[in-house]
């Protein structure tokens, strides 16, 4: 085995600290003039790929990939500042939630990229914090017919097999699989490094391929239709009761007694 060729897909999402607002037409979440950053789970994947290299696991190449609007390039730069060797950007024109790829579209696209880049390990975030679908990794594994280990909390590479530990209810589960494989990351996999200013400057010199969907074979059109997007109902405030009798009558009113 000549070494790992790792592909790390990343997504540009609304920053975790921003409270998303639904647009007036209730078709999507407002994205204009909202702070965006890399999906935190994807940061974990990049970090894990870089750490594999730092642990002297033979890593030939770490490729960061993103499909999204032109600004997704900033996210790729961040990925390269964290340690990815180069980036691939597939430009997609999104307008108010239209034209956006859905998980199956992304998985089909990734399959093409994997074939082209001859990757043998794909590390994805387990889900993105914007649509929370958590499907892309599994779909890609199915399309490629590769082994998969989802929600990894520890990854070890030994020769051409990978041992992945996952947190399950009441303990941990250890999986072992042969390369090539798909790994999706859980929150406690590692602590992603901060992409510092000098590293971002250096990342600007790393190669970034720009492509469009037309460069890839296949049908990536959406099959799902978003019917309506609404905000969760506001939380109702509690009330203070005067005494025990007051509390009991309130509980009776609510049907709890």
């Amino acid at each position, binding site marked *: 085995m000549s070494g790992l060729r790792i592909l790390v897909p990343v997504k540009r999402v609304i920053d*975790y*600290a921003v409270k998303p607002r639904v647009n007036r037409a209730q078709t999507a979440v407002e994205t204009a003039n909202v702070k965006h950053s890399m999906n935190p789970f994807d940061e974990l994947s990049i970090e894990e790929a870089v750490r594999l290299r730092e642990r002297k696991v033979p890593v030939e190449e770490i490729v960061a990939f993103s499909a999204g609007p032109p600004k997704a390039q900033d996210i790729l730069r961040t990925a390269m500042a964290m340690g990815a060797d180069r980036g691939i950007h597939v430009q997609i024109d999104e307008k108010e939630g239209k034209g956006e790829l859905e998980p199956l579209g992304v998985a089909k696209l990734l399959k093409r990229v994997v074939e082209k880049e001859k990757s043998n390990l794909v590390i994805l975030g387990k889900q993105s914090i914007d649509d929370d679908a958590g499907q892309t990794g599994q779909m890609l594994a199915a399309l490629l017919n590769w082994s998969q280990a989802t929600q990894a909390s520890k990854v070890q590479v030994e020769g051409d097999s990978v041992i992945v530990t996952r947190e399950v209810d009441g303990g941990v589960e250890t999986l072992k699989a042969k390369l090539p494989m798909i790994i999706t990351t859980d929150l406690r996999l590692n*602590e992603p490094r*901060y992409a510092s200013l000098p590293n971002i400057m250096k990342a600007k010199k790393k190669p970034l391929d720009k492509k469009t969907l037309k460069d890839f074979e296949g049908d990536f059109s959406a099959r799902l239709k978003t019917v309506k997007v609404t905000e969760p109902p506001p939380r109702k405030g509690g009330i203070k009761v005067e005494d025990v009798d007051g509390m009991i009558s309130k509980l009776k009113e609510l049907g709890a007694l």
Partner: protein
Amino acid sequence: MTSTNPALRHQVIRIYKDLLYLGREYPQGYDFFRTRLHRAFASQKNLTDEKKIRKGIERAEFVKKEIEALYYLKRYRTLRQRYDKS
């Protein structure tokens, strides 16, 4: 302003810029961060002793690490609240 050691001056400016960059995501806002950072550096501008300047740079590096850790923890806790606790 005459610098005792041009290399040190360069280092100070670099760590200042690094910190400014970090401050863009500071929870209390960039302006809050920038004024305080500026004040902290300005209060040390009279240092001429090379040892003391090096100490100051070390302290700045320490603060930088602390801020990075702060950001990481803040995000980790928020995500854990949202995704891990069911």
